[in-house]
Every structure is written in C-alpha cells, then in structure tokens.
C-alpha cells in the first residue's frame, strides 16, 4: 500500500482535539496514523452503489421522558469533584475571546 499518499496534519488535528503534543509525539503519531489511514484506504474498493444507511431503530414518542423533576446532585458533590472552585462555581482561567 502506498503509505506516502495518506497523511494528515497531526499538529492541526491535535489542536482541534485540544491535545498539546511534543515534536517527538507529533512525529511518532504522524507515522503511526499515516499507516492506519493507508490501511483504511481499503474501503475505497467496496462497491457502495446501492447501499444506504438504514435506521436500525428509531425512538418512538413514548420512549421520551416526561417533563418531571429527577434527582439532581448536591452542590457539594459538584464542588468536591471540581479541581478548582470558588463562589459556588467551577473556576477556570479567565475567558477572553467569546
């Protein structure tokens, strides 16, 4: 399989995925993932002429929940799990850009 052809911009995609990569990781993942992408090229050989994805099942109205109050978590549980909290809120670094 021609693995040269299939390449992704690992740096860009990792940014989309919110994962910081070292140059070393970038290089390693690049070659490993290019191999995988090259392998999945096999899907191009499948003749998909007539194939349409069917809905195996669909939810009917009575599988929806009624608008009734359920059990919420206590405020303390949310705060205890948060790595940083203040004023009853989860604390995050200052958000600048909207």
């Amino acid at each position: 399989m021609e693995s040269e052809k299939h390449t992704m911009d690992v740096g860009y995609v990792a940014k989309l995925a919110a994962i910081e990569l070292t140059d070393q990781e970038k290089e390693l993942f690049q070659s490993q993932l290019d191999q995988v992408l090259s392998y999945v090229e096999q899907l191009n050989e499948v003749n998909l002429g007539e194939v349409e994805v069917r809905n195996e099942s669909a939810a009917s109205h009575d599988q929806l929940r009624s608008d009734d109050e359920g059990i919420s978590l206590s405020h303390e549980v949310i705060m205890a799990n948060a790595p940083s909290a203040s004023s009853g809120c989860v604390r995050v670094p200052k958000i600048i850009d909207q």
Partner: protein
Amino acid sequence: MSDLKSMTIGALKAALQEGEASAQEVVEQLLTVVEEDAGRVGAFLSLDKDSVREQASVCDEVRGAGNDKKLLGIPISIKDLINVKGDPCTCSSHILEGYVAPYDATVIRKLREAGAILFGRVNMDEFAMGSSTENAALGVTSNPWRLDHVPGGSSGGSAAAVSADHTIASLGSDTGGSIRQPAAFCGCVGLKPTYGRVSRYGLTAFASSLDQIGPITKNVWDAALLLEVISGEDERDATSLREPVPSYTKALEQTTSLEGVTLGLPREYFVEGMDPEVEEAVRNAVEQCRALGAEIVDVSLPHAKYAISVYYIIATAEASANLARFDGIRYGMRVDGADPAALYAKTRASGLGDEVKRRIILGTYVLSSGYYDAYYKKAQRVQQCIRNDFESVFKECDALIAPVTPTPAYRKGEKTDDPLKMYLDDILTTSVNLAGNCALSLPCGFSSDGLPIGLQLIGNHLDEENILSIAHLYEQHTDWHKRKPEFLS
C-alpha cells in the same frame, strides 16, 4: 473449609443456600488470595476491604432472615470504567485522578438489587482502548496462564481476576472484542450482549454506538445468570431495548441436544496468518457440535475483511467526542494554563496516554471538515454492508461458530510499538459490534504452550438464549473450562 474462591456462581449459590458457606467466608478467601498475589496477576486497581466485608456481612444477615436473591452474597468485580457511587472510576487513566463517581451505573444498581457483593475494581486498557491491558496507566495485569503474557484487553483485569480465582465473576465492556478476546486469552466465558440489551448508563463511553457491558465468568451458566440480572430496558439509556428479558438460565438448562440447530462457519473468519493450533481447536469444536446434532454450513460474510477499517473510523470518531469531556474543568486532574484552551491542551497532554491520544486524533481527523465524507460517511455505508451480511447469513443458520482471535495470548510488549498490528488482532470480533449482534467466547482448547484458546459463537439480534444454550451444551461435553492455571496449584 472448602475452596470457595474457585467456585462458579452456580456452585457458590448452592453452597450459600445450603448454609455450607457464608458470604463472609467467600470474601475472606478472595481477599487473602488477592493480597498474596502481590501484583503477580495484578488484576485489581482497587479493592476496598472494609466495604467488601461490610457488604458480605449484610448479605449473610439478609440470608439469615430467610431471604434469597439471584446473586445474594456473590462477589462480582467491576471493570474500572463503570460508575459506582462513592468510588473512584479511573478508566485506567491519570486524567480521572481525584474523580469520585456521584452515582451508580444502572448495571451496578441491578447488581446491588440482586444482592451481589461489589468486589473491587479491575484493570483495563485506558478508556477501553487496547487489546492487551498494556495501555493502562495505573497498573500491569498479567495472564494467569503465563505471567509474561498479556491477559488480552481491554477487559484484561476482568478476565485475569476470574481466571486466577481472584473473584467469582466480573463485568467487562466490549466495543470491538474487549470482553470476548480477554476471555479467550484467559480461558473464561465472556459474553457481549446484543447492542441495547444492557443499559450503558454509567458506563464511561468509548464508542457509544458499539459499547456493551457484559459478563466474564467461569462457565456458561454463570454468564447466563449474570446477563439475566443486568439486562433490560432502562429509562436512562435511550438506546436500551424494550424487549422483555427471558430467563437465560432456564433456556440453557432445557437444551439437551443440538438436533435441528444449524451452525454457520464463516469462511472469512479463518484468516491468513491464523495460528494453526487455534484453527485446529476451533475445527475440533465444530466437529464436536456436529456430533451433538448440529448441522454445519459454510457461510460467507464478504465484508468482514473491512471491519477493522470501519471500526477504527466509527469508534475513534465517537471517542473523539466522548472523551472531550475529560478537560480538567469539572473533575479529575488539571494542569493549569493561561486561558481555558491552554488548560485543556496541557491537561489532556499530561493526563491521557499515547494510545488514547492517537485514537482521539484519528477520530477528530475523520470528522473534520473536508474528510467527513471520505472517512466517516463511507465507513457508515460499509458498516451497513457488514450488517447486511449478518442479516443474510442468519436467514439460513441459527448461530455462527468461529475463532475469537487469530492467536492465543502473546508476550507482553510484543505489539505495543505497532498500533496497526494491535488493531488487526480485533479482526474477528469487531464485526459483531458493528452489526450490533450478540456473541460469546468460551474455552475450546489449549495451545502447546498451555495457553487457552477461545471459541466464538455469534447470535442474531437478541438471540442470547440460543448462543448460551449451544455453548452450554458444548461445555457439558468438554472439560476445557475446568482447567486451572498452573500457578494456582
């Protein structure tokens, strides 16, 4: 005192019912062997002795008051990605350090209602991504049959604990083979239920459209009983199926012959490079079924060879979104940054392992602008072909019979540097997840190295009764499941 720790659920139930043993005695035996193991098998990530003893004592009281329940006093170990109220749920990842689950998964609620003892949390590949339990950030698990071999994965801890008699039974999860493959590698019975049969509420999602929780046990009857307890519609899981849950144990007890049963032998499942010992063991099992009355027919699943490609596109795409919530904001670990974006990137860089990062990146890529149609959309259509293949073979046969893995368990470290090679090991299991069918793995032989070999029975949608019955009958006529790893003696 008799050896309680190596009993099946069925045997232990009888012993408890007859008053020959107490739940407290069972857990003491298990706690002792786990402690003595000192990490040789290393199946457990955490085991709260006080909690286990407390639960056991309650079970004995309940029984003393004249009550019985399906799993009263039976210790069950839980893969560490299922939420149990008040416990950590690490998913074998650093990123969930500090997280304490505030709620019970539906399967946990059902186990509690059935009287089970929640016996510790068992190891796995990080976020269930892996086939060897080597992608585990918090501990190493070994194959009890040969300690320098992998137990399989991702439910490696679940299978190793059962196989080593460190627990009575366990729950695992199966997204592409993660119950069946470790069960095969460790000589256990592992069942992946039909998609939607068991509620996923509280199961930390890897690939939501493929994930199912299922039992890993010492024999088929145990798997049937455990499935009976955990199955059923759940108002908290919109994808759970509404069909009533039959008594699986009753079904298999009633099956005494395979007369009238047609088993399909999918030719694509005997792949190139398959270990000859595996092939031989499976073919022997096929003959055994024939001898028990089954009719064997050759069938073809022409798109089976594309399953790995489809699987690694669909599963990673879903995972890229499912794992986005592990961002250091609301729970788990955090590496601070100047702004939220920096915090996310640093937290995820430090908290997630390589394989998880690789899969998130791959999944992000196949969904990204300009590539969605070429990868995700196409994979969905080929997935439909795979479904169609199964649909058509199930018109002519009752179940499929096949190997679980191309080889028995391999040495640790053998495949860790080559992700694609590791992925290709899932070749015989992923199709079932993509089609939503049920399948189980049960022991059908041993390699010359003394490693277990698994037999896979694949059933139609909601046809668990059928594959359990066939497996049970086969098991009755073989004794593979009775063998124990050497190190136990």
